[in-house]
């Protein structure tokens, strides 16, 4: 527990983006995504400008492009869905390369692809420049109910522990010659899941007792309260404001 608790997506650094207070970054990303979602899909150039904005942020945060692109792979399932859209959507049809595609479906696919990708890229940038603990502090500063933040912090803190426990159970199964290959092995796997639940729950009880014995009475002590100056706020909100200008242009033009 003494080692750093950075999650795998976090990229350590000292850029101006890393240094911003977490709640300003959260607010900025959230506003940015809202603006992106409410942009009309016909304004293709607007999405290109958004991508340029995000690239500027990535440059300022010194996040390499390869890292960002690799993280974007998470949305592949929905890309597959978007590719299907032009084939199943209704309305006016157009012939592309000998295939009859729906115009509305093409617009829809473009809409989901563009907005989804920008949203994922913004989230990835947030996660790669903000430490977990900071992120939770930021959520708390943004007036998320403290209990919810506590639950989230316990989940994050013990997520790795529970995942490791699951991995150890897997190693234990395999060292006894078990190999899951089909439906007939679900019983064994489900029993592992049940055992994992019991272990997690009992660990929760132990953690609670340990907390109570150290004086816990329902709320966590706030040791380091983050606050943001006006300059930091305005620096963080540059991104959504620039995006808002683009969005308004998109609606007007």
């Amino acid at each position: 527990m003494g080692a750093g608790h950075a999650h795998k997506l976090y990229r350590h650094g000292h850029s101006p983006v890393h240094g911003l207070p977490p709640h300003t970054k959260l607010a900025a990303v959230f506003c940015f995504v809202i603006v992106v979602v409410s942009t009309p899909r016909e304004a293709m150039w607007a999405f290109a400008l958004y991508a340029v904005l995000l690239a500027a942020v990535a440059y300022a945060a010194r996040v390499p492009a390869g890292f960002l692109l690799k993280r974007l792979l998470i949305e592949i399932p929905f890309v597959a869905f978007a590719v299907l859209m032009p084939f199943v959507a209704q309305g006016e049809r157009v012939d592309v390369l000998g295939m009859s595609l729906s115009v509305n479906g093409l617009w829809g696919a473009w809409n989901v692809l563009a907005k989804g990708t920008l949203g994922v890229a913004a989230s990835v940038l947030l996660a790669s420049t903000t430490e977990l603990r900071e992120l939770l502090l930021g959520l708390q500063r943004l007036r998320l109910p403290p209990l919810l933040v506590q639950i989230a912090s316990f989940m994050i803190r013990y997520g790795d522990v529970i995942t490791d426990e699951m991995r150890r159970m897997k190693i234990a199964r395999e060292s006894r010659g078990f190999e899951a290959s089909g439906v007939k092995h679900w019983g064994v796997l489900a029993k592992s899941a049940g055992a994992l639940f019991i272990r997690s729950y009992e660990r929760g009880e132990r953690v609670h007792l340990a907390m109570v014995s150290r004086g816990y009475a329902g709320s966590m002590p706030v040791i380091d309260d983050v606050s943001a100056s006006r300059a930091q706020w305005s620096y963080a909100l540059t991104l959504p404001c620039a995006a808002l200008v683009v969005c308004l242009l998109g609606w007007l033009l």
Partner: protein
Amino acid sequence: MHVPDGFINAPVSAAAGVVAAGAVAVSLRGARRELDERTAPLAGLVAAFIFAVQMLNFPVAAGTSGHLLGGALAAILVGPYTGVLCVSVVLLMQGVLFADGGLTALGVNITDMAITTTVVAYLVFRGLVKVLPRGRRSVTVASFVAALLSVPAAAVVFTLIYAIGGTTDVSIGKVATAMVGVHVLIGIGEAVITALTVGAVVAVRPDLVYGARGLHRPLKLRVAGELVDAPDTAPAPVAARGSHRKVWITGLVTSLVLAGFVSFYASANPDGLEKVAQDKGIDSKTEKHASDGSPLAGYGVKDVGDARLSGGLAGVIGVGVTVVAGSGIFWVLRRRRTADTSPSQITETV
């Protein structure tokens, strides 16, 4: 099934966000009542468990594999309130940390995957446990059915949200068939795994299974060589009834809010969309778009006031009818059960 940004339009995402926030607030209070100050560590650890168990791969055949979604499992193991909280927190963290599911679609995702699965699974589960004979096997059967129904229910809710605020006009029939069809298949897998997992937990620590709390055998004492019922059997049914009523009221309120609010929005929103489309340009493109006869396009233009009212009313009436029918069945069952148990109680009190 994580919905990305841009898949559902902004107003509907916001409405789903409001629904999700309300449900999370209700579950926060409920969970605090259930777990008092143990809420944070226990719910946190259960959320971590859900997070981990979603990574546990269940091989199906020929290299394909599925994994658990966990809503039904959470509802049965730790109760509906804590279950909603755990799955919501998992979704929140997946959205913020892993970019899995869009930030603006968080409300949609929570409404769909946390609230619907958990609430549906728990209601079905409690209903079946009440109907079926007491015992471990009926817990397993009930969790099977609960999980089986919870996944297509989530697909139905997703289709509903999509019908209101989807950004492409794929016909609703197609979306519904595809979503429900696929998710019935997923639901079968989910049901088998959930039932097996709940069975495994019930076998070892039945006291940990929230849904099976009322099922423990009465304590027997061995007095002078023979088994005698311990005297404290009276408080248990009262507690069970209290929690039952709580669940009933919460379910009623949630479904009324969902039905009334969402279907009100259902008819209000395409109107907005249509209006925007008309404002944007009365040029050829928009007109074609409006007249292409898709069900989305035809939703709200004709008579908005009527549609709104009738939509909301239909939702509320539907919920009302369901609730009356459901509680009628429960009432009959409970009467039968109390009629069954009353002789023993009389002998005890006498």
